[in-house]
């Protein structure tokens, strides 16, 4: 047997580009299953549009048109009214994986830069067809319009323009047209329609017009004109960084000393703390950042866990707010009753700030209609983005399940017309998996979800109780008003006498009924 030389072997070794990697591992982008794949496409496109509009201070208005050409073959046309994408960037946005900066410690709808290019990749992989983007944007004061037809060159991780046209547009925005096969439009809880509905609840400032494959048009109107303020970037807290993060910062910094890198890149990092670190670890912090070794970074991170720091700043967190959640839920669910709450910021793992918001709605369009029966539904969100998959392992589900709902007058949560809304707001949402569909059950998060939900459940309980009491009081009055005259009439027949005047007795008993309607039921009963 002839041994092969190393050089020969390495001829076959190629570096995988990000695009090529994800082409081979599309499940890592969340594209598993026909229904889920389409939902993820909606998710990426909607998220991107909302982010773009908000950054530009525009009230988002999306038009989504899903046409079915054949079984499992769809054309998706997604249009927004955002600021548009300058021509030079279109290729990068839609064809390059990992375009974007990793170290913005900012509350965002949370993509790794895979989003739009992932959608293009899936389209290309399932249909082989090119994608088309129309972008309207201002170049200086001039409105420009361009239409590009392109493919993704997977090997090079960049776009391949097939056609370019200048178009006349009246406003800014992006419109993308994508072909898909091997996906499926579904009305289930995991489907694309439900994804839009939930997005609208958490984003009451947006408007979405959606045409489904049957041609039916749904208009989800905005429930508020207030565009949420842009989250501010906050420096990461020492407890929230890893050795890898430190090395990355060291590589990309313009600071000359490691000492100044620490104070400028991390929050709650005073000179006093830096001196402490120097003393404890014995590392010379005056050296140049790029001379920092992995081993040293590890030691510093280890020390962070033992040092006392102030809790991280919470100024970067922008919750939806209880009023806006209420607006969103009212608009979409039109419930009988609603209660919402936004908790104060807390931290998990000692260094990551988060806020829990919750809403509960009852009656009206709350819950899901399954057959004839209304079932309760749990809507989970992270930074306003609906989490539709992996419900079982999520901290939100776990926290809600641990609540003793009977204590809140809800005998059977599962079979009640109730929608529970929970949103976690954080610069770093602790997802359990790459699909970003479930939250890690951190004790502090579980606690906050429970507290928030129990608070609003108490309001619901009051409402249900009052409803029940009012219903019973009405029923009681009705019983008296219908039966007392009958009894007196029949008694008069029995006694062979005239029917006496009984208005005052009737008034007496009906009034008493109203006052005593919460009295013990068994009183005066036979055993």
């Amino acid at each position, binding site marked *: 047997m002839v041994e092969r030389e190393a050089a020969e072997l390495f001829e076959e070794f190629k570096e995988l580009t990000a695009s090529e990697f994800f082409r081979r591992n599309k499940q890592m982008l969340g594209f598993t299953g026909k229904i889920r794949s389409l939902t993820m496409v909606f998710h990426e496109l909607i998220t991107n549009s909302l982010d773009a509009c908000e950054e530009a201070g525009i009230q988002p208005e999306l038009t989504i048109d899903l046409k079915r050409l054949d079984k499992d073959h769809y054309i998706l046309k997604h249009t927004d009214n955002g600021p548009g994408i300058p021509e030079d960037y279109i290729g990068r946005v839609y064809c390059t994986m990992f375009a974007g900066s990793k170290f913005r410690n900012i509350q965002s709808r949370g993509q790794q830069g895979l989003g739009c290019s992932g959608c293009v990749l899936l389209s290309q992989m399932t249909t082989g067809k090119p994608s088309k983007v129309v972008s309207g944007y201002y170049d200086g004061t001039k409105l420009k319009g361009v239409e590009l037809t392109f493919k993704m060159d997977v090997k090079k991780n960049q776009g391949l323009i097939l056609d370019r046209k200048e178009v006349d547009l009246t406003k800014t925005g992006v419109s993308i047209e994508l072909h898909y096969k091997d996906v499926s439009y579904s009305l289930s809880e995991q489907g694309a329609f439900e994804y839009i509905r939930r997005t609208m609840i958490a984003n009451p400032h947006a408007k979405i017009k959606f045409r489904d494959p049957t041609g039916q048009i749904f208009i989800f109107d905005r429930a508020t004109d207030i565009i949420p303020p842009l989250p501010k970037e906050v420096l990461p807290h020492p407890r929230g960084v890893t050795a890898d993060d430190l090395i990355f910062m060291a590589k990309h910094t313009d600071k000359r000393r490691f000492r100044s890198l620490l104070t400028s890149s991390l929050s709650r990092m005073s000179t006093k703390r830096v001196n402490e670190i120097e003393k404890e670890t014995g590392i010379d912090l005056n050296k140049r950042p790029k001379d920092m070794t992995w081993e040293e970074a590890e030691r510093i991170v280890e020390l962070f866990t033992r040092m006392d720091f102030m809790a991280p700043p919470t100024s970067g967190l922008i919750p939806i707010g209880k009023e806006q959640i209420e607006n969103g839920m009212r608009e979409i669910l039109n419930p009988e009753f609603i209660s919402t709450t936004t908790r104060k910021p807390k931290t998990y793992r000692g260094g990551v700030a988060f806020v829990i918001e919750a809403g509960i709605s009852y009656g009206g369009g709350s819950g899901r209609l399954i057959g004839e029966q209304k079932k309760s539904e749990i809507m989970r969100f992270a930074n306003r983005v609906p989490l539709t998959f992996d419900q079982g392992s999520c901290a939100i589900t776990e926290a809600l399940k641990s609540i003793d709902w009977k204590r809140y007058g809800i005998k059977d949560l599962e079979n009640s017309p109730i929608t529970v809304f929970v949103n976690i707001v954080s610069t770093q949402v602790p997802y359990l998996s790459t699909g970003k569909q479930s939250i890690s059950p951190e004790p502090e998060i579980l606690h906050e979800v429970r507290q928030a939900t129990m608070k609003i459940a108490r309001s619901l309980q009051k409402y249900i109780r009052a409803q029940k009491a009012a219903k019973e009081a009405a029923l009681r009055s009705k019983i008296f008003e219908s039966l007392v005259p009958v009894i007196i009439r029949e008694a008069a027949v029995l*006694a062979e006498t005239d029917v006496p005047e009984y208005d005052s*007795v009737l008034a*007496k008993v009906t009034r008493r009924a109203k006052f005593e309607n919460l009295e013990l039921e068994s009183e005066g009963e036979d055993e």
Partner: protein
Amino acid sequence: MSREKTIKNRKEITVNKLKGLGETIIDEINQNNVPALKVPSRGTSNIIYDEDKRYYVLGDRYGKRSLGNVKQVPKLAQMVYVANFCKDLVKRGKTATLREMYYVSEGWDVDFGDQQESNIVGEDLEVTLGTTREDLGLMPEEDGASVYGNLIMQEDDVEINALKLGKSGYTISPTIDDVKFVDHGVERVIAVETMGMFHRLVQENAYKKFNTLIVGLKGQAARATRRFLKRVNQELNLPVYICNDGDPWGFHIAMVIISGSAKLAHVNHDLATPDAKFLGVTASDIINYDLPTDPLKDIDVLRLKELSKDPRYRDEQWQMEIKKMLKIGKKAEQQSFSKYGLEYVVDTYLPEKLNAM
């Protein structure tokens, strides 16, 4: 007082009681009060064994049916309706079954959930007024026992001789209170559990031999049967003997005739015949006559133990028989005497037992 008069009187009393119920309510209304009826409680804790009377009676506890209580108002309405219905029945000399009343109630301004509910309201009315269901004109569905023997009765204009109605005899009607006893030529009454034994006694001319009425109970005695036995015992001064199967169920059929049932505690004064005697089959009979037996089943043993704690069985004789049956672990049917020939029960057993009484 003649029976004719008694019957008329009973009717009058019933109508007056019903009228009084209506008056109670109207009076309260006139005084601007919220009317409430007191309904004696029929819960187990209010059923008391009366040692002197030797049957169950109702205690003093009662529940209320108030016009001011939302849960009681429908019951009150039902009760007044039923009262009017009954008053009409009694006045017109008619009767209706509970089922018929249930259907009539469809036209009323108050609902009955089911027939059980209307039955309960009927009972409420019975206990409230202290009168029997039969007096109110409400009749059970089932007929009573068969009677054979020299007893002449009159029902409306028809004269009935229980000796001349064929071998199956006279069937006791639910309206037994409307029947007059005209004449008789007997010294006693023998009631037997099964119609098999009834026909045996008829065939063997027991009615002649013992100068007796023969009553075939057909299992647990119907209200009309118990009322009949009470009346022949009281009005005609005839001793009543009961002969059943030799098992706990036979014992209890006899005991309900003698001391009444707990469930009908409110009317036992009209139904119980405390002087009636249990003839057999006793556990002693099983031993003395060496009868063919079956082993006691678990449920028989359980029932015997229950009976031994029942105040109606406090009597020494009963306690002894129950213990004995538990000890031998055996039971025997009435008809097991035919081991010694079909005539044995009439020729030997009954004479011996009657003599011993």
